[in-house]
C-alpha cells in the first residue's frame, strides 16, 4: 500500500537550522508499524533521518513521537490504523522538549523532573532484617502507575506544560503518586508538601491529554486528582487550588448548584484580594451586558436540596 509520510526534519548542524517538513513515498505492508516504515525510509530512502528506538515492542519507551498530531509510540502504531483525510501520515518529534535532531528529543528535562519527586522508597520505622514487605493486595492499586515506561508521550501533549515549562508534568506526578500511595512509604506528608508549591500538583489544567495518549494506561491525570484528594485529606496548607475544590463541594452541598461569584470570592479570600479585583473590568462588562450571575441569597438552592444534603451526609458515613 503506497503511503506518504510527512516528516518534520531538523538538523542543528545545517547552515540555517530551521525545522521543515519533508515528504517520503513508501510502499508499506498491512503489518507495518510507523516505526517499521521510518526504519525502511532510513534504510532505503534517506539515511540522514534520525530517530530513536530499541525494543520495537512497546516496552523500552524510546520511540515516543507525534503521529498525526498526538504523541504515541511509533512501534505500537500500525500504519493501517491511521486515518487522515488525505492519506498522509504526519510524524513529528514530541512537544514540550528540545529537539536534538529530526525525531529525536532531549529527555534531560523529563528525567530531572522525575528525579525531583525522589522516586525511591523512603520507609518509616526500623529497618527490617530482609526487604520491606507489602502484601500483594495493598500494592494492587499501584500496578497501573508502575506500568509507566517513561516514554514522555504525556509530557509531550500536556496543555499546562505548553504554557509553562516550570510545571512538573504528568509523568513525574504519576511517579510521585506511586510512592505517596505505597503502604511502605513514610514520607507521604513531605512529598505532598513538596507538590503543594507553584509548578506542582495544582498547576495541572485537567485536560486529560495525558490519559488519552499514554500507551500504558497509567492515567496520570487521575493520579494527580488522587494526589490532590490526599493532600486535602492530609491537611496540607490550603492554596487557591485546594480551596477551589473545597468551596465548590461546599456550594453544591448547600445550594445543589454553583454560585460563581461566591466561588471566586471564597477561593481567593482576603489574602488574594488583588487577584479578585483584577476580574473587576470583566465583571463590569458582564454587568453592562446583563449577565452578571446571581449570587448569595439572590441565588437560591435548587428544589430538592434536602435530598442532596442528605446524600452528602450519607457519603460522610461511608468507610
Amino acid at each position, binding site marked *: 500500500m503506497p503511503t506518504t509520510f510527512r516528516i518534520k526534519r531538523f538538523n542543528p548542524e545545517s547552515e540555517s537550522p530551521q525545522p521543515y517538513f519533508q515528504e517520503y513515498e513508501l510502499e508499506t505492508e498491512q503489518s507495518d508499524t510507523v516505526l517499521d516504515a521510518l526504519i525502511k525510509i532510513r534504510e532505503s530512502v534517506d539515511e540522514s533521518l534520525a530517530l530513536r528506538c530499541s525494543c520495537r515492542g512497546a516496552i523500552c519507551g524510546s520511540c515516543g513521537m507525534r503521529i498525526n498530531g498526538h504523541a504515541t509510540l511509533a512501534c505500537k502504531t500500525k500504519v493501517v490504523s491511521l486515518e487522515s483525510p488525505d492519506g498522509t501520515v504526519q510524524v513529528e518529534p514530541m512537544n514540550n522538549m528540545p529537539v536534538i535532531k529530526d525525531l529525536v528529543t532531549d529527555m534531560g528535562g523529563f528525567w530531572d523532573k522525575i528525579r525531583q519527586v525522589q522516586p525511591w522508597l523512603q520507609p518509616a520505622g526500623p529497618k527490617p532484617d530482609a526487604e520491606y514487605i507489602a502484601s500483594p493486595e495493598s500494592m494492587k492499586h499501584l500496578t497501573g502507575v508502575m506500568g509507566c515506561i517513561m516514554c514522555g508521550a504525556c509530557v509531550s501533549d500536556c496543555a499546562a506544560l505548553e504554557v509553562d515549562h516550570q510545571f512538573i508534568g504528568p509523568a513525574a506526578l504519576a511517579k510521585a503518586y506511586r510512592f505517596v500511595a505505597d503502604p511502605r512509604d513514610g514520607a507521604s506528608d513531605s512529598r505532598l508538601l513538596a507538590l503543594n508549591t507553584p509548578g506542582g500538583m495544582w498547576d495541572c489544567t485537567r485536560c486529560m491529554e495525558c490519559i488519552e495518549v499514554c500507551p500504558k494506561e497509567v492515567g496520570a491525570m487521575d493520579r494527580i486528582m488522587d494526589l490532590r484528594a490526599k493532600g486535602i485529606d492530609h491537611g496540607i496548607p490550603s492554596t487557591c*487550588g485546594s480551596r477551589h475544590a473545597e468551596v465548590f463541594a461546599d456550594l453544591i452541598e448547600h445550594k445543589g448548584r454553583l454560585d460563581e461569584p461566591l466561588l471566586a470570592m471564597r477561593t481567593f479570600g482576603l489574602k488574594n484580594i488583588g487577584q479578585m479585583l483584577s476580574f473587576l473590568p470583566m465583571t463590569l462588562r458582564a454587568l453592562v*451586558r446583563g449577565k452578571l450571575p446571581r449570587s448569595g441569597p439572590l441565588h437560591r438552592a435548587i428544589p430538592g436540596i434536602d435530598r442532596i444534603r442528605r446524600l452528602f451526609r450519607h457519603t460522610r458515613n461511608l468507610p
Partner: protein
Amino acid sequence: MKYAFFPGCVSKGGCPELYQSVMQVYPQLGIELEEMTTASCTGAGVLQEKDLRLGDILNAHTLALAEQQGLPIMTICSTCQGVMSQANHRLKSNPEYLAEINRVLAEEGITYRGTTRVKHFIWILLEDIGEETILQHVKRPLTGLRAAPFYGCYLQRPREALGFDETPSRAKSLETVIDLLGAEVVDFPGKTRCCGLPLLTINQPNSLKMVAHHTSDAKEYGADLMVTPCPLCHLNLDGLQSKAAKQNGMEIDLPILHLPQLLGLAMGLEPKGLGLSRNLVATESVLEKIGIRV
C-alpha cells in the same frame, strides 16, 4: 424525541445567553424537553478532585431521576456531558461499584439500574435529529463565514467514556455541524485543546496564555469566529479574551459563539433572541458577514 433536560449551572449563571439560545432553537427541531430541576451540579470535575465517589453518587442520583422518567438526558455543556459520561461509564462497567453507590442511594429510596443515556445537544442534532432535518431548517446558510471549532476537553477525552468507539463521528461533530450550516470549517491545531478555565483561579497567567494562544491562532488561520459547545470554555475564551490579549500584548477580538447561537443564526432567528448582545467580545462583525444589518 423527548429528553430530560440538564441545563447545567453555567447556562443558568455566567452564560445565560446559552440557555436563551437553546430555548429559541429546540422547539423548531421537534425536540421536547422536561427540565430536571431537582438534579444537582455534576461536580464539573472539581468536586471530584476532592472526592470522586461523592461525585459519582450525585451523578448516579441524576441518572436515576432520568431513569424514573424513562428519558435520555440532554446536556448543553461539554463539561456536564463529560463528567456525567465518565460517571455513567464507571457505574455501568463495574456492577460491584454500582451496587456500592446504590447502597447510598437506597437511603433515599432510589436505585440506578444503569440504563440512562446522556447526550450532548450536538450529538442529538447529528444522531437523533439527523443531517437532513437540520438542512431543512437552515433558512439562512452561513455562506462565507469562517468558523473555528473549539470542543472543550470533556467532549473529546477520554474517548471510551464518550462512546467514540461505537460512534466515531462524535470526534468530528462540531466540524460536521459547521459544514451543515453552510459555514467554512477553520481547522486549527487548538480545536481539541484546553481553554484553560480549570486553572483560572489557580494560575491565572497560565490560564490566560491558553486563551490568547488558541484565539489568536484561530484568527491567524483565518477564522471570523469560534464556536463552542461548552459554556465553561466560553467563559474563558469570550469573557477573559480581552484580559488575555492584554496580558500577552496582543489584539485579538475574535467573537466566540455558543453552538446554539450559531445554529439559531443559520435557522434564520433574530440575533437578539439568541442573546448575541450578551457575548462580551462583540459579534457584530459576524452578523455583518452574513448580511444581517446591525
